[in-house]
């Protein structure tokens, strides 16, 4: 499939175009448009939408909640919903809420688009763009740790529940205590992981030589250039039209 062969650098340009557009554009319809474009791009990159929604269900609920809070606390002149004369939702608030949701969704989708490339190729792409190897390697390594931490967090949640703790029945004060218990082993294990990786890298003489030779060399193809140029020009055009409307 073509999407699988797209160079990670092309995906970086695409993702930068999408996130820049969504942060610059203020017009609601255009912001929603960028949201739709980012989802279409993710689909074209081979991301399965249903699996994605299932995987990020909790984050999406969190985003939605944040957007609702944003809507409620943004004052405006045109009231859409009020209780006992107290305005709860204004037109401006609703617009801000939707924009916040779409902006965060685009950032999330961008991450998903980048995750369709394997991390080794992404590092190589960055190196070929003259990003110092150590920085590129650290960036990629930190990205690789995200699913590990997610898994460890889920395991800790399960282990706590197996101690007979029902999260829903705990009073708020004790909930904060529970989160301390949850975070402690994750921090400790991440320190342990970091130490192990540092020892492994030292033992493999990481950074011992100034010049590195590359086994994997990425080459941009015609369609990579086409996608990059289209993404940059379309995003400039899109922002220009959005500002003119």
């Amino acid at each position: 499939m073509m999407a699988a062969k797209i160079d990670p650098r092309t995906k970086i340009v695409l993702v930068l175009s999408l996130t820049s557009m969504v942060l610059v554009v203020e017009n609601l319809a255009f912001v929603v448009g960028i949201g739709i474009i980012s989802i279409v791009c993710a689909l074209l990159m081979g991301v399965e939408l249903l699996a994605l929604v299932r995987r990020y269900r909790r984050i999406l609920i969190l985003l939605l909640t944040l957007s609702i809070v944003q809507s409620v606390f943004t004052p405006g002149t045109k009231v859409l919903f009020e209780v006992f004369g107290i305005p709860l939702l204004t037109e401006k608030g609703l617009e801000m809420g939707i924009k916040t949701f779409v902006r965060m969704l685009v950032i999330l989708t961008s991450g998903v688009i980048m995750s369709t490339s394997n991390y080794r190729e992404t590092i190589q792409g960055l190196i070929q763009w003259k990003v110092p190897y150590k920085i590129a390697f650290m960036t990629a390594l930190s990205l690789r740790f995200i699913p590990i931490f997610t898994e460890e967090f889920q395991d800790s949640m399960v282990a706590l529940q197996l101690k007979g703790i029902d999260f829903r029945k705990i009073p708020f004060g004790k909930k904060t205590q529970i989160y301390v218990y949850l975070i402690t082993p994750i921090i400790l294990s991440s320190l342990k992981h970091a130490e192990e990786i540092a020892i492994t890298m030292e033992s493999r003489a990481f950074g011992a030589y100034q010049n590195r030779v590359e086994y994997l060399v990425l080459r941009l193809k015609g369609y990579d250039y086409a996608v990059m140029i289209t993404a940059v020009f379309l995003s400039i055009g899109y922002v220009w039209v959005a500002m003119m409307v």
Partner: protein
Amino acid sequence: MESYIKLTGISYGYPRSRFALRDINLSLNRGEIVGIAGENGSGKTTLGKIIMGILMPDSGNIVIDGVDGKNLKLCERGSKIGYAFQNPDRQLFAANVQDEIIFPLEIKGMDKTTALVRAAALLERFELSHLKERVPMRLSRGEKQRLVLAATLAQEPGFLILDEPATGLDRDRKKALYQLMEELAREGIGLAVISHDLQFIKDHTNRIIRLKDGKVVDDGC
């Protein structure tokens, strides 16, 4: 005697993988020590996780202490069945050894004095009293395993699943573990020991369930 845990027609497959468990029918009782043996990838740990509710079966039914497993939340199963993970680090949360036993009890509403008394008895039993102020993560593997067992038993479960409990233990500690298993069985707690060490299972359990490719190939003494 009614089984404490009854599995009927349990099947489970990991996503994009072959079946990990196929049509498992088992009855596990209180007071017995059952060994669940099999080679790597035979489905032993998956079976333990299915019983605990960490994984949900694709088909089949589990009844625990007379209650349909579908009606039991993870925390409720955790109060009925204790589970000691293969890696004890995953089950240690607190800042010190004593707190590891006390905090779930306090969160569930037990007063501190009672919790401290229960913790002191368990620490004594597992020879951890002298380590009660230590950070759990800094203990040796054997000490961590004993602490996990102590913390699990503090919940007073009717059944205990131990996933590879003998890993990393020297001969004396293995012997102590076996003695503890016998004591618990005498107290009426059921035990399922998951291990690929068939010799340990043969020597220390009353009943051996052998798994191969996700199926029970042998269930006997």
